[in-house]
């Protein structure tokens, strides 16, 4: 290349920042000297622009392009070297500028069009769409759309500008559907004392949406827990405090099942050994295990050994006791009983057909001593006469008078009024009642001198109602005699040996207090979920899967043969108890959960939220009835 070719006097100065370039050069021809005009027209149609000097036109062709031409300008001042014009092209710089405008314009058009053409209203795309929601949220926000969580959505530019300067209301919208056992925006939903300064929380601190079908939830690391908790430690292995003394058997079982006596005594007894389960899974439902492994129901676990015991226990509602004299008007009784051929009262010395004592239930209901003939003679015979007239009505009245809520309907359920009337009529005539047949199938029946109830089997509703009645009336404050009669009745009904309420042999009786401080006794009829540790989580199923079904339970749950398990149930305080099993210590977990084996972070065992629930009706759309066409 010639060195001086680009000298200032040999070549023109290139200006690539101008908007146009020579059209001839773009076709790889020799470019003209002048180049395009600023407006994009060709500047090369002539070689120069002649200059008028002293009435003569002079050629002004630059020296670099050969200097003045031989022909010179024409008489009118036009250049003598004319060429057809070219079509100047845009320079790269201009093309680049246009592309920038195009690219930015495309984005702005996309934004603008998506604001106008929302997909929900027939548009194609949404440039505001932050991503698909999780399955659950997608379903429940289907109708409301974005505004279900983003209050400002669809409210126009003024609301948007306002939202920029306001705090986010995202978490507030979360609690429209979610609720907790405590304050929603306090740490762990716990109601802490005012002197503890704890920063308020927001749902979006941990929960992220728009990440696809699965909700993105932050799994808290020990460092994050330590940022609030004073008791800081690295992991279960390093620094975690020892488990509490009773862990994990904090609350008394609702069913008194003494594992020691069953495993070591009853199951070894040849009489029952064929009915004994082979392993824990024989009674506990490991297939549905999670934090707790619930036992199977009564029919699976208990019935084979204990079912026959239930049917032997009976309730004596009324027993005709020894009477001192006949105080019932015979004529009225015959009329009430509609006995054909009965005679008027015979004037002879009265000899009571019964030498028994009054039943404790009747004694309580009439509030009379069961052994004082002089005292109970009149009220009892009045009751018998009323029974002859109105069957169960006087009993229902007496029962309902004992408590605020009417209980007679449950307590006297399925009581045949005819049987009661016939028995009362017989006793009114100082005769024994002859039942037409033996009561074999349970239920209410009259037999000679008594009205009895025989439970049909486990969970008999009448028997349960009598247990609850006995417990309810025995804890009521009242006069001393009445209270002692209530307790005597309760002891008889709840008698494990022969009382109809022998249910309490297995079901725990617990004292509960209401908000006023009044206490009452309740029977724990059902399996009780352990909700005293709402922040704890443990997955039995994972552990059983790894350790196997045979021996995995005994790895952690070690039978404590020393404790008197049943002693805990003699009292009504559920907190004062000892488990059949030794408490689990930290070292038990650390057999597997150490840094070198299976590490444990806080949230593996501890839940953040307190009793999380849903507020919203999960199935708001109800089936519509078929249209009548």
């Amino acid at each position, binding site marked *: 290349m010639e060195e001086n070719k680009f000298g200032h006097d040999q070549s023109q100065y290139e200006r690539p920042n101008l908007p146009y370039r020579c059209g001839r050069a773009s076709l790889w021809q*020799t470019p003209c000297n002048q180049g395009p005009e600023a407006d994009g027209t060709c500047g090369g149609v002539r070689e120069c622009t002649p200059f008028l000097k002293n009435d003569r036109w002079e050629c002004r062709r630059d020296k670099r392009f050969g200097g003045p031409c031989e022909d010179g300008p024409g008489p009118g001042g036009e250049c003598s070297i004319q060429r057809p014009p070219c079509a100047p092209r845009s320079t790269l710089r201009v093309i680049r500028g246009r592309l920038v405008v195009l690219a930015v314009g495309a984005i702005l058009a996309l934004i603008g069009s998506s604001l106008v053409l929302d997909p929900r209203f027939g548009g194609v795309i949404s440039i505001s769409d932050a991503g698909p929601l999780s399955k659950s949220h997608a379903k429940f926000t289907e109708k409301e759309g974005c505004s279900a969580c*983003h209050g400002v959505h669809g409210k126009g530019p003024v609301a948007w500008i306002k939202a920029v300067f306001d705090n986010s209301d995202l978490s507030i919208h979360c609690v429209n559907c979610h609720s907790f056992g405590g304050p929603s925006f306090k740490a762990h939903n716990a109601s802490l004392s005012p002197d503890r300064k704890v920063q308020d929380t927001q749902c*979006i601190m941990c929960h992220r949406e728009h990440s696809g079908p699965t909700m993105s939830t932050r799994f808290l690391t020990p460092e*994050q827990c330590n940022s609030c908790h004073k008791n800081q430690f690295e992991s279960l292995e390093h620094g975690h405090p020892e488990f509490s003394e009773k862990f994990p058997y904090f609350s008394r079982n609702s069913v008194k099942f003494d594992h020691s006596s069953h495993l070591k005594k009853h199951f070894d007894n040849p009489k029952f050994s064929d009915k004994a389960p082979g392993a824990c899974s024989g009674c506990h439902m490991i297939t549905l295990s999670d934090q707790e492994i619930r036992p199977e129901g009564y029919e699976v676990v208990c019935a084979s050994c204990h079912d026959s015991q239930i049917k032997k226990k009976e309730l004596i509602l009324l027993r005709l006791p020894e009477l001192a004299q006949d105080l019932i008007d015979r004529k009225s009784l015959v009329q009430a009983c509609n006995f054909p051929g009965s005679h008027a009262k015979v004037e002879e010395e009265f000899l009571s057909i019964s030498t028994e004592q009054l039943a404790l239930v009747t004694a309580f209901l009439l509030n009379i001593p069961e052994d004082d003939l002089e005292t109970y003679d009149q009220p009892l015979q009045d009751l018998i006469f009323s029974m002859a007239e109105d069957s169960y009505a006087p009993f229902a009245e007496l029962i309902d008078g004992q408590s605020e809520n009417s209980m007679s309907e449950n307590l006297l359920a399925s009581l045949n009024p005819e049987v009661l009337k016939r028995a009362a009529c017989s006793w009114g005539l100082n005769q024994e009642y002859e039942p037409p047949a033996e009561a074999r199938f349970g239920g209410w029946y009259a037999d000679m001198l008594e009205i009895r109830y025989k439970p049909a089997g486990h969970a008999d509703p009448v028997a349960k109602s009598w247990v609850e009645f006995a417990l309810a009336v025995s804890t009521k404050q009242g006069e001393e005699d009445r209270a002692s009669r209530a307790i005597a009745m309760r002891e008889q009904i709840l008698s494990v040996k022969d009382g109809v309420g022998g249910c309490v042999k297995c079901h725990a009786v617990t004292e509960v207090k209401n908000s006023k401080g009044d206490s009452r006794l309740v029977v724990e009829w059902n399996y009780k979920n352990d909700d005293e540790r709402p922040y704890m989580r443990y997955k039995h199923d994972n552990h059983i899967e790894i350790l196997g079904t045979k021996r995995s339970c005994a790895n952690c749950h070690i039978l404590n043969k020393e404790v008197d398990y049943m002693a805990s149930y003699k009292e009504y305080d559920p907190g004062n108890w000892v488990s059949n099993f030794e408490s689990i210590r930290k070292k038990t977990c650390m057999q597997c959960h150490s840094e070198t084996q299976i590490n444990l972070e806080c949230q593996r065992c501890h839940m953040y939220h307190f009793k999380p629930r849903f507020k919203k009706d999960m199935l708001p759309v109800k089936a519509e009835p078929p249209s009548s066409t």
Partner: protein
Amino acid sequence: MKIHQGYSLVRVWGYVGFASLLFLVTWVWTIQIDRALGIPTFASGWVLFGILTFIALFSARKRLPFLPLAPSSRWFLLHAVGGFLALFLFWLHTGGVGSKGFYGQVLTALFYITSISGMVGLAMEKFYPRQLTCSGAEVIYERIPGEIAEIREEVESQVLKCTEETGSSTLAEHYLETLNWYFQKPRFFMNNVFGSHLSQHWVRQQCMILERFLDEKERGYLDRVFMLAEKKRKIDFQYALQTLLKTWLLVHIPLAGAVMAMVFWHLILILVFFV
């Protein structure tokens, strides 16, 4: 100590070190926010926004040459280092992939394409100038059409002269059939980009085919045509590389504009709906 293109190694490593430090500080900051149950993406997002704005200012700087805002070469270096820092901050901000929403995917795609085009451009800016200098025929890009036209005219005048002087049309006919195509405009673009010698072989082959049919005088003219073809080959090489050096910006800058537009939209959405 100097490296090619006039960049001081100390300055280069100084900028890289500063960028690394800024990234580390942001990283630690996000970790601390995360531990305090804050939203770390806010921190990384704001830093990323600042860096993107800064590297976008390079374009504005080029439009303001009259202001004493440090030389353009330093801005270019800062732009390149800032670009890599933005890429790492983007990974920190998004975890590698953007959101699954449409606008997040558009933003992510645009950002990655812009970054890749920037890296390709940086590589070209680093290696091509040296090759252009070493080719031995440096020429201003805008003058290449004129240079090619000038060579073509010279070749054609030599061919005419040969025909007039020798009375033989062999060279002229051969020129019209083959070499004329070569001299019309830059040829063998991709071969030149990848440093292939195909164009040289092609010209040499065309001359060798013809040589045996020419007498001594005609061979002299053929030699001159060959020399002009060699010159044209060097200009073609200049054209190919300089075209790439100029046109990669046609991808990078418009996409960068689109990225910034999307970034502002993202910022608006976050401020309105999330913060």
